[in-house]
């Protein structure tokens, strides 16, 4: 095994699909595009391909950096690269920006051919099932009959799970990390507060803010601040921020006084500066709707009965957004179905975001599992 290193400079690619994509919402996208990146080499048998599915704010830039932007590292660069847990010396890794995203794939900011204006609020609500369908079309283009593995954290893990249900013959392994089989009322509640923050921003203009030359940054900022709280753990916040004050605190006013306020506002501002508000709405809705067991009267084992993949399910002890108990629901359903599944509960202080963090044990587990994935 080589010393772990980055895949180095990468370039994104784009594919335009002309065959319409029928969506769960009952409509269809007549013409749509996906941006994606690939790392490593597809072998002659086309049997070493790995699909990486992104979470709420993720995208196709998973590993490496752009030649003209060396600081823009892929969001899972610590996981993917030569000698890394998902080893690009062995595997051909594909990252894709999902439909409805704001990183180049067809989404709310794309021009709607019917109006000549950005789609905005008219962009159809897309679901995890729709994404899987779109990703499968990309696999067709790349000549990949079956993924050696589909891998994702959080909302990405839900896509990996959906793959095994919808296209069981096209995925040999699924790595479902920091995910849940469906959202709880509390999860949906958080998402809806975030959406309300965006929708009630006067600059939202019913989702058609592009034509007004403005952006609902206040709402998006609040949505991100709220979301960010749910990605962290109480322990981690206590350790990192506690009740630490900013210089000049204690003025009996409403400015930034506690470090946690400063941190959250910074995160909110940073995110609102570049993310698309309509995409945020779509991604949270995809989360809310995700419930593969629903057509089976809530019986997840019934939903997964046809899956043919082997599974690695991973959770993190301090993740309260999608707690270990939620991952155990997936595991129990898979065991009931007598599927091959391993489950690892990683001790981490980092809450839901732990799936993105450097953690020796976590990475060793993924590396060990991937090492047994045949190419």
């Amino acid at each position, binding site marked *: 095994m080589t010393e772990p290193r980055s895949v180095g400079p990468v370039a994104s690619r784009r594919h335009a699909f002309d065959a319409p994509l029928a969506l769960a919402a009952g409509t269809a996208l007549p013409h749509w595009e996906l941006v994606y990146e690939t790392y490593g080499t597809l072998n002659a048998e086309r049997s070493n391909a790995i699909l990486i599915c992104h979470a709420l704010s993720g995208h196709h830039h998973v590993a490496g950096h752009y030649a003209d932007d060396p600081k823009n590292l892929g969001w899972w660069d610590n996981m993917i690269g030569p000698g890394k847990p998902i080893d690009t010396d062995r595997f051909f890794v594909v990252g894709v920006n999902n439909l409805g995203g704001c990183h180049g794939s067809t989404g709310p900011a794309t021009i709607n051919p019917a109006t000549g204006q950005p789609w905005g609020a008219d962009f159809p609500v897309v679901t995890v099932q729709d994404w899987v369908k779109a990703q499968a079309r990309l696999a067709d283009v790349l000549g990949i009959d079956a993924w050696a593995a589909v891998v994702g954290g959080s909302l990405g893990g839900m896509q990996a799970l959906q793959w095994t249900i919808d296209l069981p013959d096209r995925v040999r392994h699924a790595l479902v990390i920091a995910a849940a089989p469906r959202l709880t009322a509390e999860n949906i509640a958080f998402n809806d507060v975030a959406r309300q923050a965006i929708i009630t921003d006067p600059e939202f203009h019913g989702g058609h803010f592009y034509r007004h030359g403005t952006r609902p940054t206040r709402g998006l900022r609040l949505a991100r601040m709220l979301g960010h709280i749910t990605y962290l753990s109480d322990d981690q916040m206590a350790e990192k921020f506690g009740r630490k004050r900013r210089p000049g605190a204690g003025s009996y006013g409403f400015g930034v006084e506690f470090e946690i306020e400063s941190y959250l506002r910074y995160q909110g501002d940073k995110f609102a500066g570049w993310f698309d508000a309509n995409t945020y709405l779509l991604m949270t809705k995809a989360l809310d709707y995700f419930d593969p067991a629903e057509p089976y009267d809530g019986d997840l084992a019934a939903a997964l009965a046809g899956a043919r993949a082997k599974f*690695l399910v991973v959770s993190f002890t301090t993740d309260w957004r999608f707690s270990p108990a939620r991952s*155990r*629901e997936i*595991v*129990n359903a898979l*065991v*009931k179905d*007598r599927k*091959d*599944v*391993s*489950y*690892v*509960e990683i*001790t981490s202080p980092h809450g839901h975001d732990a799936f993105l963090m450097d953690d020796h*044990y976590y990475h*060793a*587990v993924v590396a*060990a*599992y991937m*090492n*047994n994935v045949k190419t």
Partner: protein
Amino acid sequence: MSHTPHTLRRPDFDVIAGWMKAGESVLDLGCGEGELLQLLAMRGLRGWGIERDPGLVLAAVENGINVIQSDLEAGLAGFEDDAFDHVVLSRTLQTVRHTQQILAEMLRVGREAVVSFPNFAYWKNRMAVMDGRMPVSEDLPYQWYDTPNVRFFTMLDFESLCDGMGIAIRDRQVLDERGALVTEESNFLGSLAVYRIGRGG
């Protein structure tokens, strides 16, 4: 990767495997690195293991077995009744605090169960106590101050508990310290006892 034959390392494994058939499913509680499950997989069984220790879980993933990281006693709660043909608790019952609960849970999620444990009434153990010391042996390889064992019992004790709980003893194999089968005076000559149990009545 070690290539020591399983029979040399864990003589009880062959006894356990002998009670199972290809195509059956098995849950191994405290599966460690997954040696038993690897042996059973070679014999055509479908297996899952429960293990708490992170290092052993990692080793089990490396070995390509199905391992579920969980506390033993909590780990069974999520499984349905009759989820497995067999549930194995190998050399671990003496480390479990809630003995009756774990036995009841094993026989809830499993059609039948296999339990192996060191026999505290083995003659060398009796001798050690007669000499005024706690026993240390092949099957009890710990000092009193570092042992994970919290329950100390003999074959007779176990059999009387099964009787009290309405658990049927379907098979019993007893091994000496070298792993050879013991056929008489089991509670005296047996160092390791392996039981196949089921729901009584």
